[in-house]
Every structure is written in structure tokens, then in C-alpha cells.
């Protein structure tokens, strides 16, 4: 067993960290203030990352991506997680699911996404279908060779800057002993398709400047060529490719927690009360000890899950454990950081309140903590059920 980084991994980490600290941190205050990143600033970040050959690092080399394994990609995400998501979104990591494109779709979607010519977004959630994804009402009916889609999606991250959206839509229903069960199909939907609209979403407490959107389909006609994977097999496509996405959530939480800890350490070592630095008080120092320990634990859970995925081992439970623990750890670590800062931590002069706010969504998106616990416990109990 080897817990060390290879030379390549070390250099990936150092390079991404350097970029995040030098190029992204200075833009954060403006993003927080405006709740908006000017498009040209985003494009400039994208250009830099393309020039570094670091764009689409998660996509296999055969499609022009960086070809990083899951472990090295998790290390990269960990560093990107330090920065505001309104900025890091421009370090393009197209959805892995695009690898399911057929030859013709590759030319239109996967390769342009890898080149940075097109941005993708992914739409699953609906107002009445959150954790209960199969409860989705967005429906595509057959009309000759085409599909006609009606319905609404919401909470669709960065669809405002997307050129196309990978949309999961119901295409039928099966009767099963446990009741009706929807059949789901994944579609590639271009911005500008008649009947398809990308509208601004809600103002979220987390990740200012990184927008969620509402998508509406009003008799939107999609030719059969827009189906990603096979008709009615949307979840199979998702399960094949999207497990890895949860690791990236865990990794980003770890990176952001380390940034919070660094801030907490700085403050504990410099802020004086009662004639000494507050880090000398056990009430503060033990917090720091717990924070560091929890961050390391989340880090290793995350890297181990990524490693298992690389080894081709069953990784659903490790991934769920990493996502669950890392997102809940981030909540505790940012909360304690704020507590160590006291009143100053609540002021938007410092990044502490932002890290605390941003942490909240991590326990909700990409599968709530409750869904992760469901996945973990089901995996534990299944072999014992008769």
C-alpha cells in the first residue's frame, strides 16, 4: 500500500493550486458582491486552462481530454474546490456521460465540449422530482421518428452558460408488482431548439454567481438522433457514468474545508483575547484538532473511493460514504471556522461566511445525505436479506 503521490500527481496538485490561488482567488470578492461573473472573465479563465492543456482533464485522451484516472482527477477537483464555483466552472470538466455519445453525436457534442467550444449542463431534477428522480413528470411522446417533450426542470446548475443540456425525460411507464415505474431516456438538447427554453432560476444561499436555471419544454420536438444511449435506458447510462461525479463533490468539499482550516489557523494564531492568542485556549485548539482530523478522514475516504473506481471495484458504497462524510464534515468545519472568527466571521469582508453558506448545498445536491445513507445501508443489508 502506498499513500504517497506520484510525481505527476504532485505536479497536478501544485499546478492547480497555484492557478486557483493566483488566478481565481483575486476574482472572488467581485463575484460575491455582484452575484455574477462577466462572461468575458469566464471565457478568459477557460482560455487559460485550454492553453495549459488542462481542460476536460476527466475525458479520455482518445477524445482529446486529459485522460486522468479517477484518483488524480479527485486530487484536481480537491484543489478546484477551494475556489468559488462561479469561477471554477470555467475549468471545463464536461460530464463523463458524454462518453456515451455515438459517432455522430461525438462530433456535435463530446468533441466540442472537450475543445471548450460548447459548454454542457445536466438536467435531472424537477419541482416534483428531487430525490425521487423516477417521479419526474417531464415526458417525451413518440411522434413518428421524433420525440415531443413537455415539462419543466429546475435547479439546473450552470445551464445559463450551457450550449446544450443532457436532459433526463420519461418516455414510458412499466407496470411492476411494486406499482408503475417510469422509463427514462437521456436526450441531448441544444440551446435554441424550438419549444425549449433556459430561464433564470432562483437566488441561492450557496455559490453566488454559479447559477441554477429552470428549463421548460413546450412541445419541443427532438429527432431520434438526440437520444444519448438507448431509448428507455437513461438510468443505465447515468449509472455507468455519473457515479464518478459524486466523488468530485466529496473532493471539492475536502479542498474547501482545508481552505477554511487554513483561515481558522491564521486567526487562532494571531487574534488575541485575554492577553494571549486564542489558539492557546483549549476551547479553540481542540476545535482545530477535530477539524484537521475530520478533513483528513474525508480526504482518505474520497481518495480511496476514487482508487476503487480506478481498480474497477464496486464503488457505489465507498462513493456514497465519501460524499456523505465529506459534505457533512465541510458543514462542521466551516461552522467551527466561523465560531473561531466570532462576529467577524459573519461579515462579508472575509471569505468565512461564504464558505459556511456554500457548504450548505453540498449535503443536498448530487444526492442528499439521506439518499447517500440509503445507498450505504442498502448495500450493507442486502446480502443479509432472505
Amino acid at each position: 500500500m502506498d499513500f504517497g503521490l506520484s510525481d505527476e500527481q504532485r505536479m497536478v496538485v501544485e499546478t492547480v493550486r497555484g492557478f486557483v490561488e493566483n488566478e481565481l482567488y483575486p476574482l472572488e470578492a467581485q463575484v460575491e458582491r455582484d452575484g455574477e461573473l462577466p462572461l468575458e472573465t469566464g471565457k478568459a479563465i477557460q482560455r487559460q486552462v485550454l492553453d495549459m492543456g488542462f481542460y476536460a482533464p476527466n475525458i479520455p485522451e482518445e477524445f482529446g481530454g486529459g485522460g486522468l484516472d479517477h484518483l488524480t482527477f479527485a486530487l484536481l477537483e480537491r484543489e478546484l474546490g477551494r475556489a468559488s464555483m462561479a469561477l471554477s466552472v470555467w475549468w471545463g470538466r464536461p460530464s463523463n456521460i458524454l462518453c456515451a455519445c455515438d459517432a455522430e453525436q461525438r462530433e456535435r457534442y463530446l468533441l466540442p465540449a472537450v475543445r471548450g467550444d460548447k459548454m454542457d449542463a445536466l438536467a435531472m431534477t424537477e419541482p416534483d422530482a428531487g430525490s425521487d428522480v423516477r417521479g419526474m413528470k417531464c415526458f417525451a411522446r413518440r411522434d413518428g421518428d421524433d420525440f415531443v417533450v413537455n415539462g419543466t426542470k429546475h435547479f439546473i446548475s450552470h445551464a445559463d452558460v450551457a450550449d446544450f443540456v443532457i436532459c433526463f425525460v420519461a418516455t414510458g411507464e412499466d407496470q411492476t408488482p411494486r406499482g408503475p415505474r417510469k422509463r427514462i431516456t437521456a436526450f441531448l438538447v441544444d440551446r435554441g431548439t424550438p419549444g425549449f427554453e433556459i430561464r433564470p432560476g432562483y437566488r441561492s444561499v450557496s455559490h453566488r454567481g454559479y447559477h441554477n436555471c429552470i428549463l421548460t419544454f413546450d412541445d419541443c420536438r427532438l429527432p431520434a438522433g438526440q437520444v444519448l444511449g438507448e431509448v428507455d435506458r437513461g438510468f443505465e447510462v447515468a449509472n455507468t457514468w455519473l457515479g464518478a461525479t459524486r466523488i468530485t463533490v466529496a473532493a471539492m468539499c475536502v479542498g474547501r474545508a482545508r481552505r477554511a482550516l487554513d483561515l481558522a489557523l491564521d486567526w487562532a494564531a494571531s487574534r488575541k483575547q485575554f492577553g494571549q492568542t486564542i489558539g492557546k485556549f483549549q476551547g479553540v485548539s481542540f476545535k482545530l484538532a477535530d477539524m484537521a482530523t475530520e478533513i483528513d478522514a474525508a480526504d482518505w475516504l474520497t481518495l480511496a473511493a476514487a482508487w476503487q473506481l480506478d481498480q474497477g471495484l464496486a464503488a457505489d458504497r465507498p462513493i456514497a460514504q465519501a460524499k456523505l462524510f465529506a459534505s457533512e464534515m465541510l458543514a462542521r468545519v466551516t461552522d467551527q471556522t466561523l465560531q473561531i472568527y466570532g462576529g467577524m466571521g459573519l461579515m462579508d469582508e472575509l471569505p468565512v461566511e461564504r464558505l459556511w453558506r456554500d457548504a450548505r448545498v453540498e449535503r443536498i445536491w448530487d444526492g442528499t445525505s439521506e439518499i447517500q445513507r440509503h445507498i450505504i445501508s442498502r448495500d450493507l443489508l442486502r446480502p443479509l436479506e432472505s
Partner: protein
Amino acid sequence: MKVLVAVKRVIDAYVKVRVKSDGSGVETQNVKMSMNPFCEIAVEEAVRLKEAGVATEIVAVSCGPQQSQETIRTALAMGADRGILVQSDEALEPLAIAKILKAVVDKEQPELVLLGKQAVDNDFGQTGQMLSALLGWSQATYASKIQKADGELTVTREIDGGLETIKVKLPAIVTADLRLNEPRYASLPNIMKAKKKPIDTMSPADLGVDAAPRLSVVKVTEPPARQAGVKVGSVAELVDKLKNEAKVI
């Protein structure tokens, strides 16, 4: 033109350096180490010379412990072609490093040696000059701009209060100042390629160099803590203090 670039592994420039409790040196255990920022600038310049078709091969050389190989790998990821590690676990002084580099130069026969103007750990700022003396080569230190013409370099140097432009004959030693360039981020393809680039390892003894220290460190101490400033109530008080206390006006 073959270019040799010297790179040094130092405590990361952004780490708060702590003096060991016995005053024998600074704490390096569990401390983040990086390439000396001025060496990074030297590597960047070499890579730019290669991209401009001036340099044909870049050899990165580092003197230090086994882990200095990481620093060489970073140089390879930035675009150097191969590396040489002269391994020594002893603390190496500028003269020892200059002698080692001279031996490497004798072997490699580069036309140009690029170094950082100084390393941010000990701040000696001597190695380039000593190497130039040992080789009998021209030197251009504190460079902020380098241009190559036939058999010579035009180098702009940063000097007190301005810039000085000089011409030096090749072969030459050039040390890089802060404003020479802005080092690039290593690209992902180059990081992956760096693994396949060769690094030769040798010892000072292999090169016939006696690297034994000539200096001994008597004591290392923290710089004195900076005194807090004072607030003045009025411009008149400020002028009075500047005149009578600080005695600067």
C-alpha cells in the same frame, strides 16, 4: 545552443519559516518545499529561448538531497529536456555548488548557463558569479531581458535606480531577476511527459568535487519583531515627529 539551468529546492516562498529551537538552522521537517522562484524564472527563460528556436536543448541540474529530483521533475514539466541530480545530503555552500556546476558544465558543454539571481532560503546571491569566475566566462547578473545575437547576448540588468544594458560574449552565465518573465503553469501534457524524461544522478565525488563546507553557522535567530506604529492626532504632530523623532525631514 545548449542551455543548462540550475534549479534549487527551497522552503516554499509562502511558508512561514521557523527557526529551530537550538538556533542551528530553520525547521524543514514537514514543511512544504518548492522550486526557488528565481530558478523558476530561469527555467521559463530557457523554455522561451527554446520556443524561439534559440536554444536546442535544456538540461536542468539540481544539487541537493534525493528529493531535489522533484524540483527537476517540475523543471521537466515546464519544458526542460532532461535532468541531472548531483545528490548530497550535506548542506551545500555557494562555492561548493559553483564547483559542482563547473564540473557539470565541463561535461555538458552548454553555451549558456541560466541561474536564479539568488535562492530565497539563504539569500546568498553568489553562485552565478562564482561559477562565472571558475569558468572564466562572461556574466550578466540580475537580468530582466535577454536577447541573443551572433555569438553574444544583449542583457538588460536591474541595478540600483534603473536599468543597465550590456553585451556579453558566449559562452556566458546569466542570473535571472524577478521581472525577466512570468513563469508559466506546467501544462498537463508536459506533466505527463516529464515522467519519461531522463534524470541522471551522480555525487559531488563522481564529479571530482570536494563539497565540504568552508563556513560554519554560529547561530540562526528570528528577525526582531516589528514595533507597532502610532496614530498621530494632526498633521502638525506628524511633521513634528518626522522632524524631531524620526529625523527624516
